[in-house]
């Protein structure tokens, strides 16, 4: 079985492995850096409505599962010699960007689970947060588009 064929058949798995890992990675950074190290985020603001609590809980659980499942999918791609790093990276950026945008808009603003930081001009923080998310989505989408299975394969010789 030649590498390019395997790659095109596992194009979706490369993407999904990246997306899942991206969602988990950004959630982990959020938890480790902003909650635990900087203490900018609150565990949660007490005025949060029930829906916000449910959404937050589901996203916490999904991100845990996604990180680990994404890495097992990556291992599966490697053992079948079907790993396409650029497509996988595109997936990571896409997953991370979408999660960060959801967190920055729905969680922080609509449900008010907590703010990015408890300062006067939180708008600047929100802007940077969501622009960073948008940048990741655009970069991810470009990479995913460039590595789509119907795209001309030029990197076949670089395998192994």
């Amino acid at each position: 079985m030649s590498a390019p064929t395997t790659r095109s058949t596992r194009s979706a798995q490369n993407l999904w492995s990246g997306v899942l890992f991206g969602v988990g990675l950004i959630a982990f950074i959020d938890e480790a850096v902003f909650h635990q190290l900087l203490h900018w985020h609150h565990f949660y603001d007490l005025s949060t409505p029930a829906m916000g609590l449910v959404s937050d809980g589901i996203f916490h659980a999904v991100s845990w599962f996604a990180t680990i499942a994404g890495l097992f999918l990556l291992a599966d791609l490697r053992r079948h010699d079907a790993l396409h790093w650029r497509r996988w990276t595109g997936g990571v950026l896409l997953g991370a960007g979408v999660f960060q945008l959801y967190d920055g808009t729905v969680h922080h603003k609509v449900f008010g689970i907590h703010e990015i930081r408890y300062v006067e001009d939180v708008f600047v923080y929100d802007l940077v947060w969501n622009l960073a998310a948008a940048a990741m989505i655009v970069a991810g989408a470009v990479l995913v588009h460039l590595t789509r299975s119907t795209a001309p394969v030029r990197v076949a010789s670089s395998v192994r």
Partner: protein
Amino acid sequence: MDATHAHGGGGSLDALVVFVAVVAVACYLGGVAGSRRRGRDWPVSRTVLWCAGIAAGAAAAAGPLAAAAHESFTAHMWAHLLGGMAAPLLMVLAAPVTLALRTLDVTPARRLSRLLRSAPARFLSHPIPAAVINAGGLWLIYLTPLFDAMRTQPLVHVLVHAHLVAAGYLFLAAVIGLDPRPHPPGRVLTSIVLVATMASHGILAKYLYANPPAGLDVLDVRAGAQLMYYTGAWVEAVTIVIFCAQWYRATGVTSRASRPAGTRLERA
């Protein structure tokens, strides 16, 4: 709360918990010895896991931690993590049913396997009912008068912990159980149930953070709720790794089997 009263009533219950734990370890060790006698080895690691699981479950229900749990919500949460999450995980990985089926005489072994195949057992061991009993039970404990009763009455305390260990075991056996099952559930469904159960645990932790049970120190409850959220997540992470590793291994076997015959010869 009257600590001496709780302790006085708890003395004989502590002894009962220790007795049950010793019996559970003795039965398992008896099974291991029986398996050896019949010439089939049993992994030492599983025996260690069983002993550790029983010890964790017992420590949650009796002894110094259980006594402290009457006073402190943080201590209570450690007992919950130890008894409701760590103990079942360790016990499930010890595959006690496999050991029992291997070492019991023919008649009781048949009876056991018939029991496991019965309609109620199959219903309870399905991930959805198992998750409802596990996660739902937790909400009942914290949001009903059961919580107060547990803190003031030693017998209720022991019964609640017995439920936590049993419900945790039932759930983890449904999700990552090693023991043989006639109708294993689909992995996608199991993933969804696992994620939903973890979500429920996280939501309950944050709910308790915002709505401390009456009569408890707010700071103590907040510390306990965060402990439940963060430490619980690590136990859940171990569960996810095991679940994914089982899936990974199973699909590896499938794709190896589906390869052309020539590539499989070296294995045979």
